[in-house]
């Protein structure tokens, strides 16, 4: 445990949040990507976060009830696609319309994505603040005993 670990932890948080921001951007960009079948239609993507344990990072087996496990940040376990219903719109003149005249639109909820975007940018900001604080704590330790 040391101040240096805080940089790793905040860094992992920033990576995770920027990936979340990435999926949000992708979802919003593809919000109106139409297709003619349910299989080809874009589906909203969401990252899944999981906490990282320190002992697993070091590669050794954690002892039972193991010591002072402060954790070591966050990781993205994967990106899952939403299984919400796709939007079916009757647009017979659309080039991608099926035989019955329906076009499938992604199940992206733009309002939800916007809220997600704000949440992830705030979380990112928070991690940056932490890194700055850790940096100033570290800089102070370097001045120990100088006057």
């Amino acid at each position: 445990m040391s101040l240096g670990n805080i940089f790793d932890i905040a860094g992992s948080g920033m990576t995770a949040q920027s990936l979340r921001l990435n999926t949000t951007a992708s979802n919003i960009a593809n919000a109106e990507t139409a297709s003619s079948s349910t299989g080809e239609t874009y589906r909203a993507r969401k990252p899944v976060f999981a906490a990282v344990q320190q002992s697993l990072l070091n590669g050794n087996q954690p002892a039972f009830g193991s010591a002072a496990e402060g954790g070591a940040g966050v990781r993205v376990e994967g990106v899952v696609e939403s299984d919400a219903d796709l939007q079916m719109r009757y647009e017979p003149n659309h080039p991608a319309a099926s035989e019955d005249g329906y076009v499938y639109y992604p199940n992206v909820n733009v309002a939800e994505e916007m809220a997600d975007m704000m949440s992830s940018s705030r979380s990112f900001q928070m991690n940056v603040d932490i890194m700055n604080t850790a940096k100033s704590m570290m800089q102070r330790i370097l001045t120990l005993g100088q006057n």
Partner: protein
Amino acid sequence: MAITFDSALGIHQYALQARVQRAEILANNLANADTPGFKARDIDFQAIMKQAQSTASGFDINTTHSGHITEGGSAPGSLSDNDLLYRTPHQPSVDGNTVDAQQEQSRFMRNAMDYQASFQFLSSKFSGISKALTGQ
């Protein structure tokens, strides 16, 4: 008369160490602010300081074997199993996460301030020592 840094610096070195550890734990809470099922953790600072104080003052039990039971459990300033606790959430969320980002951030800032205070004490200890050495 033996001069040791341990007795010269007093409790402040352990306080500083504990502050760093707490900063790390709080940073981890904040990094996992959006992780489902993550439980926020913290240390009982007072308990750790008490433990460090009792060990630093020399009233601890000497152990000569790894199987011996120690009173404090570990070296001063280092965390043991029992020190890292789970926070009681004010408002549990649906995904099982107990991190309140605002509260954690205010605790982190407070911890950074306390760290500066401990640092200031330690720094003045050092300047006191160097004054004594130069004899001016």
